């Protein structure tokens, strides 16, 4: 509200009765509802673990604790970046907010990548959605969580683009902002492909310079795309403009953050209940 032009008090909104901003309250109420949502899903999984079906898959032969631990760690770190993004935005630091959002997206994508990898890997091992009950509950539960992450990533991307909205309304900006993001996305994906290729060759031939070279050669297109997107990023990053984004939007970023953290805590539960407990 224009009446309070000075510092914005992030924890109190004077236009509302309680002082809590509407959007934040909405988000918390939604998360309360989402607790029941995941509660029902997790119950289904655990109930069927309690009474396994005959000749069902043995999770221990399928799970890869290394991979899951890694993605758990990644999600935790993304939460950190998200929290920092909210903090930065509340202080009006748009530049920092953007970086933190990008970082969150980056980790979010890695998490999703791991999940895609995990799913394809499991499918190779014979566990599919309809191979047995374990497959059904496992994929439905973790898949629903994955969809939550994907929605979160999408939201983050839109927020990221939104941060470029110029104060000068006559300026065309959406295309550039999207391009900037696309470059980032390409860079992220290609570097992941390159790393995979290199480790793949390295695992087979030992980690020598020649092997790394071979790995790079295997992913030549990715390398080119990576360089090109980095160049685009740098070029676009040099020019910027005064934006219509700042402290006033902190509540939007914060709402997004709440959602993201919630997805994170759901994973904390899933990690323990679905994965770790199987090892006992």
């Amino acid at each position, binding site marked *: 509200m224009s009446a309070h032009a000075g510092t914005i*008090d992030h924890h109190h909104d004077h236009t509302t009765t*309680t*002082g809590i901003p509407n959007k934040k309250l909405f988000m*918390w109420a939604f998360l309360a509802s989402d*607790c029941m949502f995941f509660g029902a899903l997790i119950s289904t999984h655990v109930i069927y673990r309690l009474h396994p*079906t*005959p000749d069902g898959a043995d999770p221990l032969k399928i799970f890869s604790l290394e991979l899951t631990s890694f993605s758990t760690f990644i999600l935790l770190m993304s939460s950190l970046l998200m929290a920092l993004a909210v903090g930065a935005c509340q202080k009006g630091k748009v530049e920092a907010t953007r970086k933190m959002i990008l970082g969150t997206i980056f980790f979010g994508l890695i998490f999703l990548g791991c999940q895609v990898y995990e799913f394809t890997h499991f499918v190779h091992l014979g566990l599919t959605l309809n191979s047995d009950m374990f497959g059904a509950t496992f994929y439905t539960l973790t898949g629903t969580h994955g969809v939550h992450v994907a929605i979160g990533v999408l939201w983050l991307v839109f927020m990221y683009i939104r941060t470029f909205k110029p104060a000068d309304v006559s300026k065309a900006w959406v295309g550039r902002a999207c391009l900037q993001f696309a470059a980032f996305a390409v860079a992220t994906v290609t570097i992941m492909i390159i790393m995979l290729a290199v480790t793949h060759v390295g695992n087979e031939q030992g980690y020598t310079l020649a092997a790394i070279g071979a790995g790079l050669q295997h992913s030549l297109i990715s390398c080119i795309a990576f360089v090109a997107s980095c160049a685009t990023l740098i070029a676009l990053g040099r020019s910027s403009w005064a934006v219509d984004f700042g402290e006033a939007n902190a509540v939007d970023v914060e709402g997004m953050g709440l959602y993201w953290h919630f997805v994170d805590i759901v994973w904390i539960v899933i*990690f*323990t209940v679905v994965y770790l407990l199987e090892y*006992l």
Partner: protein
Amino acid sequence: MSAHAATTQDHAHQDDGKFHLFVQIAMILAVITGVEIVLIYLPLAKWFIVTSLVLLSVVKFLMVIFWFMHLKFDKAFCTILFFIGLVLAGGTVGALMAIFSAKDSVPLTAQTIYAERAAEAAANAQ
């Protein structure tokens, strides 16, 4: 307005410290996760490991909601709101577990497994 100004400053002050706080929390979270992973391989009593895992997850859970999600710094109402859902969900999950653990709820398909296992155990014992 002056009262508000004071609280605003308070918060500003906290905000500066939050960067380090957040990083530390993230590190603790990572460490706890590491401990959890190690824990499952330790030759300890099962009940102990399960309890510890549950406790550790709860700690992680609470750290995220209270710090990352700002519940600690927000009006208590947000906490109440969220905990209504959390407690009901927890209660429902618990009740379902209890119902499905009852003997009457063992599905017929699993009964054959249990019977096989029992037979195997009996055979092993001999």
